[in-house]
């Protein structure tokens, strides 16, 4: 058996577990019908589990990191009747190389009566070893990842994404799901098309975030290299600069509002329909190309200043130093 190096401990297939999985955050089917709960544990075989891939287009996924070595899965299936419940499948593929893949789907076929997608759901609550990297793809369900140490690649089409207390590189992308990233210590790349991005306590090397029609709000951002871009949404950022850091905040139509806790010298350039540089305005100079330049703090030969670039073609640009 090629996949035998990972032992699967089935502690269940049961109904009505005493500890219920997380309640679904997206609307439940209007007719609750039948609910089946089950638990499963995947023990590592020869090699520790280092990657977990999840595809669940039918509901929510919540992943919690913990200090153990196995993956514990609590599932909750919901369907209007027995036949519909039987169509809902959770497939688990543990590979010998230490990767585990979980996918959900609904069986099809002409023998089944038509079953609307809004009538069924599968929610998963997963406890995974902290050092496993997470790859997850959802549809309209909410995706939540907490307390992990190896980052992940997380995507939804319209469901919200929440990442909290995660180390390692994190990449998130959603068409219209609001994204919240909190306490991430690693590079972050977040992208939405028409949803807001909320960033709080980001301490990695790089932070790149963009939204077409959403806003971006960042607080306690300490990444060395920051790029925030929107087309129509506002951007609010409260950040801390580091030496030789770079911070580029740009919008086409949205206002840009940046508050900075300064460490060392900073060099600012800004351009917008209206620019207010606060205390940096005292020594500001406007160039012919429309950019306003300013510098705060002394630059010596050994330390280059942090570079700040703020722009909004049609919006306001505001800048302030937090003393």
């Amino acid at each position, binding site marked *: 058996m090629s996949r035998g190096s990972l032992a699967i401990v089935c502690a269940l297939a049961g109904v009505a577990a005493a500890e219920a999985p997380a309640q679904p955050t997206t609307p439940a089917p*209007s007719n609750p019908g039948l609910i089946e709960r089950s638990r499963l544990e995947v023990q590592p075989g020869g090699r520790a589990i280092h990657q977990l891939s999840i595809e669940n*287009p*039918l509901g929510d996924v919540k992943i919690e990191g913990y200090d153990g070595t196995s993956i514990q899965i609590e599932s909750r299936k919901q369907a209007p009747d027995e036949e519909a419940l039987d*169509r809902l499948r959770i497939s688990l593929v543990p590979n010998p190389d230490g990767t585990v893949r979980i996918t959900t*789907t*609904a*069986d*099809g*076929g*002409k023998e*089944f009566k*038509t*079953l*609307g*997608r*809004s*009538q*069924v759901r599968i929610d998963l609550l997963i406890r995974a070893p902290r050092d496993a990297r997470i790859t997850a*793809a959802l*549809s309209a369900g909410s995706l939540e990842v907490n307390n992990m140490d190896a980052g992940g690649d997380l*995507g939804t*089409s319209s469901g919200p994404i929440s990442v909290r207390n995660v180390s390692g590189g994190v990449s998130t*992308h959603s*068409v*219209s799901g609001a994204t919240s990233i909190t306490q991430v210590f690693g590079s972050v790349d977040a*992208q939405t*098309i*028409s949803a807001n991005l909320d960033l709080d306590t980001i301490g990695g090397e790089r932070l*790149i975030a*963009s939204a*077409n029609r959403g806003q971006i709000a960042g607080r306690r951002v300490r990444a060395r290299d920051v*790029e925030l*871009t*929107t*087309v129509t949404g506002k951007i609010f950022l409260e950040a801390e600069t580091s030496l030789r850091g770079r911070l*580029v905040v*740009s*919008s*086409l139509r949205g206002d840009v509002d940046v508050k900075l806790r300064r460490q060392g010298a900073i060099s600012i350039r800004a351009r917008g329909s209206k620019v207010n540089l606060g205390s940096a305005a005292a020594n500001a100079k406007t160039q012919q190309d429309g950019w306003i330049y300013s510098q705060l703090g002394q630059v010596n030969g050994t330390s280059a200043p942090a570079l700040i670039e703020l*722009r909004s*073609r049609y919006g306001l640009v505001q800048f302030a130093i937090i003393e």
Partner: protein
Amino acid sequence: MSCEDVRPRLTGYLDGELDADRGSVVRGHLRECAACRQVATDEAALRDGLRQLPHVDPPPSLWAGVQARLAEAEVADARRPAWRRALTRWLPSAPRFAAGTLVAATAVGVLWWRSQRGPDGDVATQPEPTAIATAPTTPRMSQTHVVVASDRGEPDVTADLAGEAGRVTASYGDAAEELLALAGEVRGQWTEEQRTAFDARVAELRGTIASAADGHPRQRAWRDLIRYLQNAVVRDEIAFAGGGQ
């Protein structure tokens, strides 16, 4: 069953939509009737051929053209006086409004007439207007609501899941086309060199999208194009995608 009865059912038969009994009758007729069998064979061949046609994506200029025409219409609309805009909005619905008014007036008339009649048809001395409408209509309305809710025409979950990746990809495609239209607005401020570099990079990223596998790889390629377009449109960062790497 005659040929005239079978022919209209052939499409349903080929789609597997007939119930077992009717399907069996059509199958039996096809075994005996060469003419109908030929019609069925031709239709099946036509459908197979249609299925094998390549999928054609609309050119990017199409959306830009649609947007340009919409913008022209908006400008023309904005230039007209307010009273003409209001009249233009109201005129198309005028016939419906008139019909609705007529129906409402008739209903009020009937209710008034009924309220004036006693149980034996005479004009009542003490009308009971509230009992007429509310009591019987309430359950009927809730019944209607239930029928609508369960008969939404939602596709089967399996088919819906199969189309999921395509829908997400299409959303990214729409966002990219929107950004391309915006790029069209700002590219006048770029140098000739920037415009050439932009076009070349967009073509390269589109090539990556076209060659990417369906699903997540193609969506990732669209996201790369979107990032590049955002940087170009918002920051005039033309040459490189992903923030100047």
